[in-house]
């Protein structure tokens, strides 16, 4: 029974996609019910797999149409779910469910919502299929559906010229990536005469040929495009900005996680190339470039969503760096950061969406003082911002710590100075991330409220709910990091290092042993930097201090809402004695000193992001060529 769950979850989403188009294009209630039901049921189906796979350690394999392997050769399309798949599937499910809830209120003023939900469900289904499948070509098909749906959703608000332009760029770069993946898959088939990942893994174990090296290079490039590492990131920034925010959240929460998943699955499981120092160095360098360029571009943005888009790119840099290290700690950190990225970046996109919904703009120079109008959104935003900057009680801290620890341990072990420099970059990027979120905090949520936003209202509850859920998850993942590591990360890490079980349950007992695949048991990461007790005591201190202040501080806050005190100069902002007036330090004015010192760098960088689709494609193709060449030169 349970082995039908994964495929049912995928099928259900695709089925619902068509049902929405048939029945729901006119009626909003039917549409919402179908979409939400499908999302919920398929999420429940996936969550039902948690016990057998993550806790009992089973691997579920499923053959489409019962085309089981014949004499050790896989001939059908197989779905295979181990802890690694399921980890990503859970992220995907959580993301599309929350996004679906959020969409209902957020999108209700748009037209053609039938198409929206169709595409949304297709996107969800394809990403879910991508992470659950055990077949390389099926993976490619899912990537294509994903790209197709993403492009259509990016250009969904097609009355905006930006959306169309972003959709087109996304399509071009995305297709280049898909073509590379397809070429890689083709070469892999030519080498192994099978498309099943487990079998390819068994065949390729320890026997890399030039063809498979080429295939690995192409596939890394292909998934690099899907996870938007620099220099493939250019369309991502545009697409995240212009897509409806519920979709931006899906993009950063699951579409680029699909790329990360593909990268891990291919490098760790299928090719088992994670112990090759050239692959490690390549991924780490690309990751470092991604995080640095992403964050420095984000610092100059003055559009809320575009800023978040560049941060999304930057955080994926951390993930790629961490998984590129090929060590257990690195992969744990990478997976944890991927999960945290889904949580906090989804949360931040939702708050951006809430700001857009409430004020009609995401331009940071035009908003301000929203924290008094939208307290829930502001609180959620702060949680997300602190999480992404890695401040201690939140989840970003634990995962970033693992990334640094893995990087610097590797640097000390291998004596390679490059890794030490990457550690420095990672630490600096963290503070720059904080800086750009401070910019948003100051210019959107704090500061002064412009006159035209005086009537701003908090968003409806169905939009608040996903934000609150994600904020709570952010804090919980930071506090109960040990449970997360034990029940989610460690099984996934074990699954990606130990493929015997994966291969055996797919192809048949003994295949792995015959191919010479071995198991290395990975122990849970030993955390010792955190003692929840300390925090408990600290809260006591805080309350004691607050009590002290309340007792002796003589708080004298007038009731500012009353008319006579509203004009009381005592509670007005200090303007060197002038009458209070609107004066907001807007987003683009912040960090002037920094930008002045970095003028030359920004000139080059902004020049590279020139918006020309030809230049973007050239960058992408050159990078792909570099990846393939590096593979060839250094893998031998």
């Amino acid at each position, binding site marked *: 029974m349970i082995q039908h769950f994964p495929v049912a979850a995928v099928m259900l989403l695709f089925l619902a996609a068509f049902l929405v188009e048939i029945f729901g294009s006119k009626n909003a209630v039917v549409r919402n019910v179908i979409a939400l039901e499908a999302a919920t049921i398929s999420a429940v189906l996936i969550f039902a797999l948690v016990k057998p796979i993550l806790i009992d350690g089973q691997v579920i394999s499923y053959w489409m149409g019962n085309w089981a392997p014949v004499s050790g050769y896989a001939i059908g399309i197989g779905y295979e779910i181990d802890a690694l798949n399921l980890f990503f599937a859970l992220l995907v499910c959580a993301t599309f469910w929350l996004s679906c809830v959020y969409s209902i209120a957020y999108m209700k003023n748009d037209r053609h919502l039938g198409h929206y939900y169709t595409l949304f469900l297709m996107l969800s289904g394809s990403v879910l299929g991508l992470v659950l499948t055990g077949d390389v070509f099926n993976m490619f098909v899912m990537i294509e559906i994903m790209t197709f749906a993403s492009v259509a959703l990016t250009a969904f608000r097609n009355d905006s010229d930006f959306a169309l332009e972003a959709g087109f760029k996304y399509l071009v770069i995305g297709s280049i990536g898909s073509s590379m993946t397809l070429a890689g898959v083709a070469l892999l088939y030519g080498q192994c005469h099978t498309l099943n990942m487990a079998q390819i893994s068994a065949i390729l174990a320890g026997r890399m040929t030039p063809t498979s090296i080429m295939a690995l290079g192409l596939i890394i490039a292909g998934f690099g495009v899907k996870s938007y590492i620099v220099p493939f990131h250019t369309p991502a920034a545009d697409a995240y900005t212009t897509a409806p925010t519920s979709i931006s959240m899906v993009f950063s929460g699951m579409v680029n996680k699909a790329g990360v998943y593909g990268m891990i699955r291919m490098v760790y499981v299928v090719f088992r190339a994670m112990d090759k120092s050239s692959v490690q160095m390549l991924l780490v360098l690309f990751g470092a470039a991604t995080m640095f360029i992403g964050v420095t571009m984000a610092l100059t943005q003055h559009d809320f969503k575009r800023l978040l888009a560049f941060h999304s790119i930057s955080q994926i840099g951390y993930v790629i760096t961490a998984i590129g290290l090929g060590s257990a700690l690195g992969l744990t950190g990478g997976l944890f950061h991927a999960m945290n990225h889904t949580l906090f970046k989804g949360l931040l996109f939702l708050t951006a969406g809430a700001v857009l919904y409430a004020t009609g703009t995401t331009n940071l120079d035009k908003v301000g003082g929203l924290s008094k109008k939208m307290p829930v959104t502001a609180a959620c935003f702060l949680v997300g911002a602190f999480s992404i900057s890695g401040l201690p009680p939140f989840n970003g801290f634990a995962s970033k710590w693992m990334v640094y620890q893995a990087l610097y341990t590797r640097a000390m072990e291998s004596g390679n100075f490059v890794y030490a420099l990457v550690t420095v970059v990672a630490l600096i990027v963290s503070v720059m991330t904080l800086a750009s979120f401070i910019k948003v905090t100051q210019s959107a949520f704090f500061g002064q409220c412009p006159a035209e936003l005086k009537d701003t209202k908090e968003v409806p509850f169905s939009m608040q709910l996903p934000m609150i859920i994600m904020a709570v998850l952010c804090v919980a993942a930071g506090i109960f990091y040990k449970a997360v590591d034990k029940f989610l990360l460690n099984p996934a890490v074990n699954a990606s290092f130990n493929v015997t079980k994966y291969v055996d349950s797919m192809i048949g007992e003994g295949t792995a042993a015959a191919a010479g695949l071995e198991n290395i048991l990975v122990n849970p990461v030993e955390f010792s930097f955190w003692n929840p007790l300390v925090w408990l005591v600290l809260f006591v201190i805080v309350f004691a201090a607050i009590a002290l202040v309340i007792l*002796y501080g*003589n708080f*004298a806050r007038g009731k500012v809402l009353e008319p006579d005190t509203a004009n*009381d*100069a*005592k509670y*007005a902002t*200090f303007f*060197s*004695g*002038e*009458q209070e007036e609107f004066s907001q330090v807007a987003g683009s004015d912040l960090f002037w000193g920094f930008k002045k010192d970095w003028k030359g760098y920004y000139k080059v960088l902004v020049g590279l992001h020139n918006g020309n689709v030809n230049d973007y494609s050239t960058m992408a193709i050159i990078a792909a060529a570099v990846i393939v060449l590096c593979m060839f030169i250094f893998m031998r």
Partner: protein
Amino acid sequence: MLKELLNKSSMKSPWIYHINSGSCNGCDIELVAVLTPRYDAERFGFKLTGTPRHADIVVVSGPITSQSKERLVRTLAQVPEPKCVVSLGSCPKSGNVFKGSYSVEAPLDNYVHVDVSVAGCTPKPEAIMEGLYKAAQILQEKREAMNK
């Protein structure tokens, strides 16, 4: 006990905010002289702050020109309690040589309660020191009154 400590320390650390309401700069220079090594008001804890929100003692110099009057009153309102107002030099007290001018609205007492007046054109730094010290004592009295 803590209350006594608070009362005592309000005298020991009076922070000054200085408002120039059209002064000729003579008094301003003398006020700065008070903080220089020769007179060193910091040994009593005096410190110049940049914003009225931090201030305990507001030092007003100049004859209150009509342009600055509104700003002066608004800034004085923004100082948290307990606070002391010190008028520095003869100008804020009487208008001095500017008295009778169409643009001078001199006595500061018309707008706000002045606790200490330091007379002179310009007052000597020693006089300013004494005035500020008296203001600090008044500050402590006000602080004690706040508890009742």
